[in-house]
C-alpha cells in the first residue's frame, strides 16, 4: 500500500461549498423528514470542526454506519424509494454524507454536482418567481464552490471571511450564460415524457373535490389562491355566463353529493379531442356565437378540468365527457394549459333521457328529509308546469333566505333543516336543496360544482379565477330544452354572480381566513388594488411564458421562423447562439487588448489631461515635481490638491509596487481626482479672492 500525499481542498472552494450546502438545503427542509435535516446539520457541523482542525474525518466504520442509518431511515420514512420526496431525500442525504468524505478532487466534484441537483429539484415543489430566483442564487453559490476549487487563491482579494474572487467569477459566468440560455429555452424542442414518473405523494389537493357536503365550499372561501386563468379569443362573455363546470354530481347519499356511475349511455363515455367523430358528439350543434378560450390550470392532482358549458375541447389529451364536463387524460400534476370552444345557447341532450339515466338523475335516498319530499309532492300537485315550480322555489329563496359564509351546522336531515329552519347558507346549501327538491318533484336534476366568475384584469385582458370563486349550482333536464343550468344562489345573492365573491363577502370574518394579510382584503384602497392586479399579471406572464412555455412554443416558433423543422431550429441556434455569445467574446477580447499602463500611470495621465484642459500642458521631459510647482503657481486655489496628488504619485511610483494597502489609497485618490476641477470658478472662494 502506498501512502498518497493528502490532497487539500482549496480553502476558498471549501468555504463556498459549505455556504452553498446550507443555502441549497434550507428550502428543502419543509418536505424532508426531520431526521434528514438533523443529519445535515450534524454533517455541516462536523465538517466545520474538521475545517477548524478540531475533529478528524469520520473513519471507515463510522461512514458505513452513517450510510446504513441513512438507507434504513429512508426506507422507514418512505417505504419503497419511489416518488419525488424520496428522491430528494436521497439526494440530500447523499449530499450531507459526501461532506464528510472529501479526500480527493473527485469527492469535491461530486459534492458540487449533487449541489446542482438539490438546488434544481426545488422547482419540482414550487415554481414561483421567488423560488426560481432563490434557485438561481443557489446555483451561483454552487458554481462559486466549483470555481474556488480551480483558483490560485493568492491572486484574488481576500475579505475577512471568504474569498470573493470565486463568487465574482461564478456570477460573471452565469450572467454571461443567460442570453444563450434564453436562445436554447426558446427553441429547444420539448419531448413527451419518456417514462411516467411518480408525482408528489401528499401534496394537499386544493380546490373543488369530487364530493360535496355542507361546509366544503366555505373552506374554499378562505383561500385566495389562483385556481386557473383564462384568456378569450374574443370579447369576454358577461359575468353571469361564466360558470366554470368542473364535476357533475348525481348521486346523493343523504349527506354528500358524488359522481354517479355513468350507466345507461350508448357509445364511448369520453370523446377525446382529435379522435374521429361519429359517436354522440353531434349532440351539441355548432352555434354561430362560438368563442374560443384558453385556460391555464394550476395543478389539482385530479383529472377533471374547468370549462364553460357547453364547450368542445381543442387540445390534445382533453376529452368531453358525457355530462358535458371536460376531462384530462392524466391527473393534472403540473400547470396545464388547454383550449376549448364555448358554444353558448346550444341545447344539450335534447332527446328524452334513457330510462336508466332518468332513474339516476331523479333518485333520492328514501330515509332522508321527509318534510321536503312531502312539500315537493304538494307543490307538484299545485304546479304541473316544471318551470313554474322552479320559479316558485326560487321566489321562496329570494324572499326568506340569507347567503352567508358562516352558516349554522346542519344535522341528519340537512335539506329539511336548511329549507325550513336555518334558511342561512352558502352555495352548496342552495344547490343541494334545489336539486333535492326538484328530484322529489320528479324532475331530473343534478348538482354541478366548479367556479363562478373570476376577476378580470382589464389592462392585460385575462381572467383570474380563485379558490374563493368556487361555486355549486344545479342543472335540470326539461322537455324540449335538454339540460339547463340553474343557479339558486343567484336568486338569493344576485350580487355574488354579478360582482363576485370578494365584493359580496368582504365583510365576513371567514372570508380569506387563511390569508389574513392578503392584498385581497384591501380592494378598497385603489393603489394597493392596482399593485395586487399587477403582481397577479406578473404571475400570469410567468406562468404563460415560462412555466407553460411548451404550450405556446410551437405557435411562437412558427411565427418567428416561418415553419418549425430541425434545419431551421439548428440554424437559429447557431446564429442566435453566436449573437448571444458575442458580448462575451468582445468582453474577453477587449480585456485581452487591455490597458498596458498600470492603474497608477492611468491615474496620473488623467491628472495631466485635466490640467491640460484647463490650459496647462505638461512639457516633454518635465518631472512631476516641476510640473506640480508650475500648476500650483497657475492655479493657486487648487494648490493643496495638486501638491497632494503629485506627492502621492511620486511616493508610490518610486517606492515600489502598488500593494494591497496602496490599493485603498489609489481608490481614494481616484475619487478625489474625479472632483478635481483646476481653475474652475468657485462661488465662495472667487468672491474672497
Amino acid at each position, binding site marked *: 500500500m502506498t501512502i498518497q500525499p493528502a490532497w487539500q481542498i482549496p480553502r476558498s472552494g471549501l468555504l463556498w461549498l459549505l455556504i452553498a450546502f446550507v443555502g441549497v438545503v434550507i428550502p428543502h427542509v419543509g418536505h424532508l423528514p426531520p431526521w434528514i435535516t438533523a443529519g445535515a446539520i450534524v454533517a455541516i457541523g462536523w465538517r466545520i470542526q474538521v475545517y477548524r482542525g478540531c475533529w478528524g474525518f469520520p473513519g471507515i466504520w463510522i461512514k458505513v454506519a452513517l450510510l446504513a442509518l441513512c438507507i434504513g431511515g429512508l426506507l422507514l420514512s418512505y417505504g419503497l424509494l419511489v416518488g419525488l420526496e424520496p428522491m430528494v431525500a436521497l439526494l440530500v442525504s447523499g449530499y450531507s454524507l459526501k461532506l464528510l468524505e472529501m479526500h480527493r478532487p473527485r469527492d469535491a466534484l461530486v459534492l458540487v454536482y449533487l449541489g446542482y441537483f438539490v438546488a434544481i429539484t426545488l422547482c*419540482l415543489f414550487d415554481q414561483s418567481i421567488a423560488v426560481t430566483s432563490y434557485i438561481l442564487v443557489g446555483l451561483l453559490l454552487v458554481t462559486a464552490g466549483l470555481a474556488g476549487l*480551480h483558483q490560485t487563491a493568492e491572486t484574488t482579494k481576500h475579505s475577512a471571511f471568504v474569498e470573493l474572487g470565486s463568487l465574482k467569477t461564478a456570477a460573471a459566468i452565469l450572467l454571461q450564460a443567460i442570453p444563450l440560455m434564453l436562445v436554447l*429555452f426558446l427553441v429547444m424542442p420539448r419531448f413527451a415524457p419518456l417514462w411516467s414518473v411518480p408525482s408528489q405523494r401528499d401534496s394537499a389537493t386544493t380546490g373543488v373535490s369530487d364530493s360535496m357536503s355542507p361546509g366544503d365550499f366555505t373552506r374554499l372561501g378562505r383561500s385566495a389562491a389562483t385556481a386557473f386563468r383564462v384568456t378569450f379569443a374574443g370579447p369576454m362573455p358577461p359575468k353571469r355566463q361564466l360558470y366554470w363546470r368542473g364535476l357533475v354530481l348525481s348521486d346523493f347519499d343523504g349527506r354528500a353529493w358524488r359522481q354517479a356511475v355513468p350507466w345507461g349511455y350508448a357509445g364511448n363515455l369520453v370523446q377525446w379531442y382529435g379522435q374521429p367523430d361519429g359517436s354522440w358528439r353531434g349532440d351539441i350543434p355548432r352555434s354561430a356565437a362560438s368563442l374560443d378560450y384558453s385556460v391555464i390550470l394550476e395543478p389539482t392532482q385530479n383529472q377533471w378540468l374547468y370549462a364553460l358549458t357547453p364547450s368542445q375541447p381543442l387540445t390534445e389529451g382533453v376529452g368531453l365527457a358525457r355530462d358535458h364536463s371536460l376531462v384530462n387524460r392524466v391527473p393534472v400534476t403540473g400547470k396545464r394549459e388547454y383550449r376549448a370552444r364555448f358554444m353558448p345557447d346550444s341545447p344539450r341532450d335534447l332527446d328524452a333521457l334513457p330510462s336508466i339515466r332518468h332513474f339516476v338523475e331523479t333518485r333520492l335516498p328514501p330515509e332522508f328529509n321527509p318534510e321536503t319530499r312531502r312539500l315537493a309532492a304538494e307543490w307538484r300537485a299545485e304546479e304541473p308546469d316544471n318551470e313554474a315550480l322552479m320559479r316558485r322555489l326560487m321566489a321562496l329563496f329570494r324572499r326568506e333566505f340569507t347567503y352567508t359564509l358562516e352558516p349554522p351546522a346542519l344535522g341528519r336531515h340537512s335539506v329539511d333543516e336548511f329549507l325550513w329552519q336555518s334558511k342561512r347558507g352558502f352555495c352548496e346549501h342552495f344547490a343541494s336543496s334545489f336539486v333535492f327538491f326538484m328530484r322529489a318533484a320528479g324532475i331530473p336534476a343534478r348538482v354541478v360544482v366548479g367556479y363562478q366568475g373570476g376577476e378580470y384584469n382589464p389592462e392585460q385582458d385575462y381572467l383570474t379565477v380563485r379558490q374563493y370563486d368556487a361555486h355549486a349550482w344545479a342543472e335540470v333536464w326539461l322537455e324540449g330544452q335538454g339540460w339547463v343550468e340553474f343557479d339558486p344562489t343567484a336568486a338569493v345573492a344576485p350580487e355574488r354572480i354579478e360582482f363576485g365573491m370578494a365584493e359580496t363577502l368582504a365583510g365576513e370574518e371567514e372570508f380569506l381566513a387563511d390569508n389574513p394579510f392578503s392584498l385581497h382584503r384591501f380592494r378598497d384602497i385603489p393603489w394597493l388594488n392596482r399593485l395586487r392586479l399587477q403582481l397577479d399579471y406578473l404571475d400570469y406572464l410567468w406562468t404563460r411564458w415560462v412555466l407553460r412555455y411548451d404550450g405556446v412554443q410551437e405557435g411562437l416558433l412558427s411565427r418567428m421562423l416561418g415553419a418549425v423543422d430541425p434545419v431551421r431550429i439548428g440554424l437559429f441556434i447557431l446564429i442566435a447562439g453566436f449573437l448571444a455569445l458575442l458580448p462575451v467574446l468582445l468582453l474577453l477580447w477587449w*480585456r485581452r487588448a*487591455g490597458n498596458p499602463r498600470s492603474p497608477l500611470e492611468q491615474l496620473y495621465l488623467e491628472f495631466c489631461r485635466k490640467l491640460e484642459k484647463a490650459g496647462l500642458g505638461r512639457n516633454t521631459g518635465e518631472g512631476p515635481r516641476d510640473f506640480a510647482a508650475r500648476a500650483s503657481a497657475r492655479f493657486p486655489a487648487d494648490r493643496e490638491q495638486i501638491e497632494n496628488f503629485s506627492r502621492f504619485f511620486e511616493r508610490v511610483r518610486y517606492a515600489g509596487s502598488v500593494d494591497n494597502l496602496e490599493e485603498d489609497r489609489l481608490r481614494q485618490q481616484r475619487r478625489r481626482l474625479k472632483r478635481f476641477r483646476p481653475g474652475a470658478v468657485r462661488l465662495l472662494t472667487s468672491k474672497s479672492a
Partner: protein
Amino acid sequence: MAAGSGWRRRWQQFYEGLLERRLPGQKTVRLDSRKLFIFPTVAGFAFGLVLLLLWLLAINYQNNLIFAFTFLLSSVFVVTILHTFANLSGVEVSVLDAQPAFAGDRAQVTVRLAQQGRRFRDSIRLYYPGARPVMVAMADTLTADVRLYVPARRRGWLDPGRLVIDSTYPLGLLRVWTHVKPTLQGLVYPKPLAASPPQQSRPALGEGVLEVAGGSDDFSGLGSYRPGESLRHIAWKQYARGQGMLTKHYTDAVDNRVWLDWDAFPGMDREARLSRLCGWLLVLSRNDTSYGLKLPGIQVQPSRGEGHRDRILRHLALFELTPAP
C-alpha cells in the same frame, strides 16, 4: 493489443507532426487559436452527464423551469469554453535563460510569460516532461517569470522537450493546452565522475613550479613551533640543545600547471573520458589550481578563475557535437 499500440503510435506521429507544423521552435511563441488545443476534462464529461440527467428530469416531469436551468448550465459550459481559452490566448512565451547544469542534474530554466494588456489570468500550469509542474497567475502584471527545473539528461545543448502550458481555469470543466518550443540555449556539462588524478609527468623545477608549504617531501627550514603543529615535525635535537621549540618545515614540489589531458585516461570511451576530465576539473578549480585543457584538436592554455573554468566546461560539453541548436 498490437493493433491498439499501432494506432497509438500513428496518433502520436500525427500529433507530433501537427505540433511541428503549428508550433515550430521560435524565440517567442505567441499563443493563439492555431496553437492552443481545448477539450473537456473528466470533470467536464461528468458535468455533461449531470446535464443529461437534469434534461431527463425536465422531460419526465414536463417542467419548463428544469429545462431552463439545464439550458443555463449548458450555456455555462459553453461560456466556460471561451473563458478557459481566453486564459491562455494572447500569452507570449519565451525562455529568459537556462542555467548550465551537469548531466543527470536538473537545469534551471526561466520561462517568461508576457501579455500586451493587464488581463487577469489565473492558474496557468507549466511543465517540461519529467519536471514538476508550476502554477502561475498573472494579476495586474505584464510579465510573469517562472523557474522550472528540467532534467538535463545528456551532455551538450539542453533539450528539455516541449514545454507544456495548460489551464483548466475557471471551472475545471475544460483544459486548454499547448506544447511550445521556445528556443533556449542551455549547456549540459558532462556528468562529473571522481577520477584519481592520473600520473603526471613532473616537469623540471623552474617556471611554473611552486613550493607548496605544508608538504612532506623536502626539508626547507626551521620555524618556531605553533600550537597544533604535528609533534612528528618538532626538531627534537634543537630542543635538546635548549634552542626552544622549533618545527622542521618541508615543502612539496608540485607542478601547479595541470593539464586536463584527453590522453590521461587511455582505453576509455569518449564520454567516460569527458566525465572524468569534468570531475577532475571541478576538484582543480576548487583548489584554485591553474589548469589547461588538451583535447584532440583543442588546446586551452592553463589559467584560473571562473571564466576560464566555464570556457573549459563549454569545450567539454560541446566536444564533438554540432555547435548550436
